[in-house]
């Protein structure tokens, strides 16, 4: 029984994924597992240790479970300023 999520990709992760976002059903038990799964699929250059995760516009924890309808963003190291 999976949950439907939308995942947003930024910067080098978007380049690797070839898209800004995708919506799909996942059975990953937590956000970390989801990232590892997507990393394998898209060939993300960044290991999970260098990425942060946000859900619905707020920073989240890697061990949080994906929620139905969530907007999940994987955030590479930032370089504003």
């Amino acid at each position, binding site marked *: 029984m999976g949950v439907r999520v939308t995942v*947003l990709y*930024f*910067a080098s992760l978007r380049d690797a994924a070839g898209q800004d976002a995708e919506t799909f059903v996942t059975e990953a038990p937590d956000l970390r597992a989801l990232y590892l799964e997507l990393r394998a699929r898209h060939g993300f250059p960044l290991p999970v240790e260098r990425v942060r995760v946000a859900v619905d516009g*707020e920073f989240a924890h890697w061990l949080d479970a994906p929620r139905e309808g969530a907007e999940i963003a994987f*955030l*590479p190291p*930032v*370089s*504003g*300023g």
Partner: protein
Amino acid sequence: MRKRFTLAPTPFDTATLRAELLDARVGAYASFEGWVRDHNEGRSVRGLRYEAYARLAEAEGERIMEEALARFDILDARCVHRVGDLARGELAVWVGVTAAHRKAAFAACRWIIDEVKARVPIWKHERYADGEAGWLHPGP
């Protein structure tokens, strides 16, 4: 509520932003501006692009401004960060802080730009004169 942190998709005017911060209680105004240089780490830069996760960037930027107001003895503070394509010589980020005295104004201004660079989900993509380009993802 007046927002203290803003993402700007187009060039913005710092004189107007500064004027909005000044009032009769202000004794000190400290500001910082980050500009697109012609070189970065020895490479000739043609231009760059800032991309943001706008929803979280605005929330996190606003938190930084609120934390600055709590941490430092300042009157007010603002920060504007450009997103989108920037040419060399364009303004990328501006911070303005007002206080009764200069020590707090400087300290808060410095703290805000450091926090914005460290915490706000904005990414820089640089294009170099040699044709190469890439995202900057600073290491730990």
